[in-house]
Each structure stands twice: as structure tokens, then as C-alpha cells.
């Protein structure tokens, strides 16, 4: 348990750093970020989308176990639900520092505009937070009953252990049933925030929501895989080999679907050859070529690697594949922003002058020596403060997962050791 104390300490430190940076930002305004009028969303929204993705994946794993009876994964449904809960909590928190007036966020609940995809997202993410919490809760109830701890479980005192076991079983399944569509919804709706905007060609595609879901399944499963690997350790790897292989296959399979959407989308964006699409292509293959390369190559490597026997049959291989995938998916989330904001929507063509696409300059929003007043593109890269603030969900996930696993049984072996329960 020494290790988990160290991890909790680390998580606490990360959260503290991030809160201090956030405090600094609240005091000085979002000017401390490198976002400006022409490039108005950056690292925070990308990180938010990343965590929504891994969160969705977690419950998709644990729900499909219950719904489709995937026996090999059963030992890891608790970890999967916990990973989903922790990640959605992180995603929800990440959105807050992006607000210019965070103290007014409650106004969304007071005067919600139901036309706004952002409001839909608030609704589904709140629902998901409750569902993932319930999912963890009902799965832990039997242990809590047996060991006499836990919370919100006063009502179980008068019931028998068997009662609670079957209650847990029944409700785990029910929560999974409701949870699966909501898991798919959170990432669909998050994608719709972007995909609905005809102003931004890079986002405005119906392929975005299904692609988000496929990336979510890949990255969410990878997170469950990593937590599970760390939880059972190298020693018991062999025992759960089957489960790990299955998870690796889910990751690789959903990446195939992701690459399918990605290529179809590139073709549709590029085939017609209009000037806006050409601009987007110039950005992703030129100026942001490195990041785009990471986004493509790392997940591609993981996909291929996890399809090979070597890639999915050792602790180390699975870890490496997953970590590379996380980096790739994070790059993917960042790449949501660059080609979207660096193509100015108000572009004109002047046929007489032989000009195809001229971007109408936008006021930067900051008056400072050395900076132009109006720009037609903005070289955004996050500031140190932004990086520090964006650590928040990472710290939170680490804290919640480690803390919960320290306090309660999420590890599979304990469940196997416990006496089999009577089925009703």
C-alpha cells in the first residue's frame, strides 16, 4: 500500500499545481493563456474532449460485458466503471477553467438554451456522472456488506448478504443497460458541439461523431487495460491473459474503424478541391504535419501491434501500446483545434485579381508591442499556465482511481476468492 500512498501524494501535488495555476488565471484573466480572438479554444477543450473519450470507453467496456456476456472481461468490470467515473469527473472539471466567468456557470442550469449542443452535453455528462457512480456503487455493495464498510449503504444492514449479492447483480446489469447508450451519447454529443458548426469546415462533418465514438472505445479501453495491468501486476498477468488479449483486440478493432472514418473524411474533405479544403490540407500536412503525424502513426502502430501475438501477450507490450495510443489520441484532440481555427471562416475570393481564398483579418484582442492588431492566423501553442491548469483532470483521475482502489476491492482476485454467491 506504500505505492498507493505515493501515487495519492503525486495526484494531490498535480491537483495543487493545477489549482494554483487556475487561481492565477482567475486573477489575471484568460490573457494568461495563448488563446486569442482568432483562436478561441485550445488545450482546455482538447483535454476535455480527450477525457470525455476515455470516460465513454470505460463504461462501454463494462456494459458490454453485462449485455453481451463477455465472460473473460467480467473480473474487470469494476475497474472499467471506476475508470469511467474518474474520467468523466475529470472531463467535467476541465471545462470549468475554460470559462471566462466560471462563477456564473450555474446560469446554464437557470436559463438553459436547449438549442445549444453545449447544453445537451451538460445534460448527458451529468447523467453519465450519476450512472458511472451508480455502476461502481452497485458493484461494490456486496463487498461493503460483507466487510461492513462503504457509504450510502445503511439500507443494506437489514438485508441478508445473498439479498445484496443478487441485488448487486441485477442492478449492475440494469445500470449497464442504461449506461451503454449514455456512454455512446456523451461522446456523440461532445462531437456534435463541433460537428454542427458550418463555420468551421474541419469540424463540419457527419463522420465526426461516429469517429469520436470509435476513438473513445479505443482510448477508454486502453485506460481500463492500463489500470487493470497495474492492479493485477506482472505476477498475475498470466491468470488474466485472456482478458488482456480481449481488451487489446477491442482497442485494435476500434482503431480500424477510426482509421476508416479518418480516411473517408480526408477524401471527402479533399476530393472536390475547393480552396477551403486545400487550406485545411495544407495545415494538416504542412504546418501541423508533426502533430498530425503523431495522431496517425502512434495509433496506427498500436493497432497493428495489438493485432500481433507479440503485441498483446506481454505486460510490457500492452503498456507500451496503450501509452503510445494515449499520446496519439491526445494529438488527435489537439488537432481538432489547429485546422479549425487557422482557417478563417470569412474568406473571400476575388476572381478578377486571381485570388482564391483571402482571409478577412480578425482583431487579435490584445494590444501589445510587437503584435499586429488584426491577424489572419494565430500561431497558438499553450502557455505554461495552460499546461499547468490542464493537469487538473490527470491529477483527478489518478487520485480517484488510486484512492478508490486503496479503500475498496476493485481487484479481480478478491472476488474470485470470495465464496460463490447463490443465484436467484
Amino acid at each position, binding site marked *: 500500500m506504500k505505492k498507493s500512498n505515493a501515487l495519492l501524494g503525486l495526484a494531490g501535488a498535480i491537483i495543487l499545481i493545477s489549482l494554483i495555476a487556475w487561481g492565477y488565471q482567475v486573477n489575471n484573466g484568460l490573457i494568461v493563456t495563448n488563446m*486569442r480572438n482568432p483562436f478561441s*479554444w485550445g488545450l482546455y477543450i482538447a483535454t476535455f474532449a480527450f477525457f470525455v473519450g476515455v470516460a465513454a470507453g470505460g463504461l462501454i467496456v463494462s456494459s458490454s460485458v453485462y449485455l453481451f456476456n463477455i465472460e473473460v472481461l467480467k473480473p474487470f468490470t469494476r475497474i472499467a466503471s471506476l475508470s469511467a467515473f474518474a474520467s468523466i469527473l475529470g472531463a467535467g472539471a476541465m471545462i470549468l477553467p475554460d470559462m471566462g*466567468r466560471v462563477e456564473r456557470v450555474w446560469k446554464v442550469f437557470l436559463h438553459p438554451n436547449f*438549442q445549444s449542443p453545449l447544453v445537451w452535453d451538460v445534460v448527458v455528462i451529468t447523467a453519465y456522472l450519476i450512472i458511472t457512480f451508480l455502476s461502481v456503487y452497485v458493484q461494490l455493495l456486496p463487498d461493503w456488506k460483507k466487510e461492513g464498510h462503504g457509504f450510502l449503504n445503511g439500507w443494506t444492514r437489514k438485508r441478508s448478504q445473498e439479498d445484496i449479492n443478487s441485488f448487486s447483480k441485477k442492478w449492475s446489469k440494469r445500470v449497464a443497460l442504461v449506461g451503454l447508450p449514455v456512454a455512446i451519447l456523451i461522446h456523440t454529443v461532445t462531437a456534435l458541439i463541433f460537428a454542427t458548426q458550418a463555420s468551421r469546415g474541419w469540424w463540419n462533418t457527419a463522420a465526426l461523431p461516429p469517429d469520436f465514438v470509435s476513438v473513445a472505445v479505443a482510448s477508454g479501453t486502453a485506460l481500463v487495460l492500463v489500470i487493470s495491468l497495474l492492479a493485477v501486476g506482472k505476477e498475475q498477468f498470466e491468470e488474466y491473459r485472456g482478458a488482456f488479449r480481449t481488451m487489446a483486440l477491442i482497442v485494435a478493432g476500434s482503431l480500424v474503424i477510426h482509421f476508416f472514418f479518418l480516411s473517408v473524411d480526408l477524401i471527402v474533405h479533399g476530393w472536390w478541391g475547393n480552396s477551403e479544403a486545400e487550406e485545411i490540407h495544407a495545415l494538416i500536412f504542412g504546418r501541423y504535419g508533426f502533430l498530425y503525424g503523431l495522431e496517425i502513426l502512434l495509433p496506427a502502430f498500436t493497432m497493428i501491434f495489438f493485432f500481433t501475438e507479440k503485441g498483446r501477450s506481454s505486460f510490457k507490450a500492452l503498456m507500451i501500446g496503450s501509452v503510445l495510443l494515449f499520446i496519439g489520441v491526445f494529438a488527435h484532440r489537439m488537432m481538432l483545434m489547429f485546422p479549425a481555427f487557422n482557417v478563417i471562416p470569412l474568406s473571400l475570393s476575388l476572381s*478578377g*485579381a486571381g485570388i482564391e481564398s483571402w482571409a478577412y483579418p480578425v482583431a487579435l484582442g490584445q*494590444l501589445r508591442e510587437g503584435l499586429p492588431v488584426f491577424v489572419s492566423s494565430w500561431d497558438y501553442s499553450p502557455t505554461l499556465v495552460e499546461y499547468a491548469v490542464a493537469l487538473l483532470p490527470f491529477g483527478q483521475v489518478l487520485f480517484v482511481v488510486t484512492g478508490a482502489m486503496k479503500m475498496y476491492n476493485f481487484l479481480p482476485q478478491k472476488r474470485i476468492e470470495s465464496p460463490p454467491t447463490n443465484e436467484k
Partner: protein
Amino acid sequence: MRLGMVIDLDRCIGCRSCAVACKSHNAQPPGTWWNRVFTPGSSFHQAAVGKDGGLQMEALPVSCQMCDNAPCQKVCPTGATYTDERGVVLIDYERCIGCRYCMAACPYGVRQFNWEDAKEVKARVGYEAGYEYGYPVDFRDKDGRLVFTPNRPAGVVEKCTFCAQYLAEGELPACIRGCPGKVRTFGDLDDPNSEVSKLIRKRQTVRLKEELGTSPKVYYIAPAKPIRLEVD
């Protein structure tokens, strides 16, 4: 009533008086410009563009297009952005949470964020201390929503309001009055006898990015100036 504007590109000389009048009347913080005037095609203002010796130079003023189907309003989670009974798209500075979704949604790049506190930044960039420019007091719409305040709070979005504070007094927006070329005409698009309606009927007008379906209420009279040299 649907208030709209017609801008005659034939008459615009690109002097940017409207941008300046707009900026000062509406007390815009440093770095914020509700109204911009640029020479399309050129990397800086008032430079001709062309090829093969055929040069042309137009000026194109752009501020909020007051879309009838306004994406900024549709995405706004709190309803801070709304369209009033005269068709003017406004922002309630007390309700905006600063999510900036509207900035991603607006196709015209007219929405601007207060990245820092307006009062502090004016002092920092060296605006003369004690010199206050622009409409001096708060203005609330008839429902009490704060749609103008001389020193904008940090963290909210702003843009052209058609000078809501002046409209309420029956006066014209500052850009209309400040334009020396009488390029801009303002009025009710629903009234067939208004000057704007007549102009739209009589002259050939275009709206920006019409293909996006935003239905702007700002119309441009296409320039009929002879292009100096027709290129084959």
C-alpha cells in the same frame, strides 16, 4: 421590425472612420474592434491587388451581420446572446459565462472576448489616465439586461450592438453618423417604404457567406466601379 443596414461599396473609400467612431462610441477596450475595414485580397489595408497589370482596390467594412438565423445565438448555452424585438442580436454581459462557443460558431469573426479586465488593460497599454471615452453609462434593454457598460468585465464576449444605447433614444448607430461618404443606410427591413428596403429592391446587393444560411441583415451593394483592366 427587423433592423438592418445597407452598405454601398461603390462609395466606401476605406477611410475607417466608421471603425474609429464605433470603437470610441462603444468604449471598446484596446485590441477590440467591433467594426473592421479591409481591402480584400491585400495583406494590408489600402493596397491594390490584381494580376497582369490589372489592379483593383475595394474596401469592405465588416461588423456583426445581425444574422436572422444566428449561429452565435443558437450555440449560446445560457441565452446570454439573444435577438431583441427589433431583430438586433445582443449579448447580456451579466449572463455570458465566457464559454466562447459563439466565437467558434460565428462565421464572420466579429465576436471578441475580454481576455482581461478592460479598465486595467486601458491603464496598462498607456491610455491616458482619467480619459474615459465612449458612452459613459450602463445601458440595459427593456427587460433589464446589461447590453452595454463602458468598462467591460473580464471574461465576457462582446460585439456590435447596432449601438443599442442610441437606438433606444431614436438615434442612429455611430458608424452611420460617422461615415463621411454616406455609405451606410440603416432602417427597418420589414417596412417596404424604408430607405433600406428601397435600396435592396433597386440595387444589386449581396450578403456575406450567404451559402451558410445565416441570413444576415447587413446588405452590401456590389461595387459597379469599372475594373481598371479586364484580364482575359
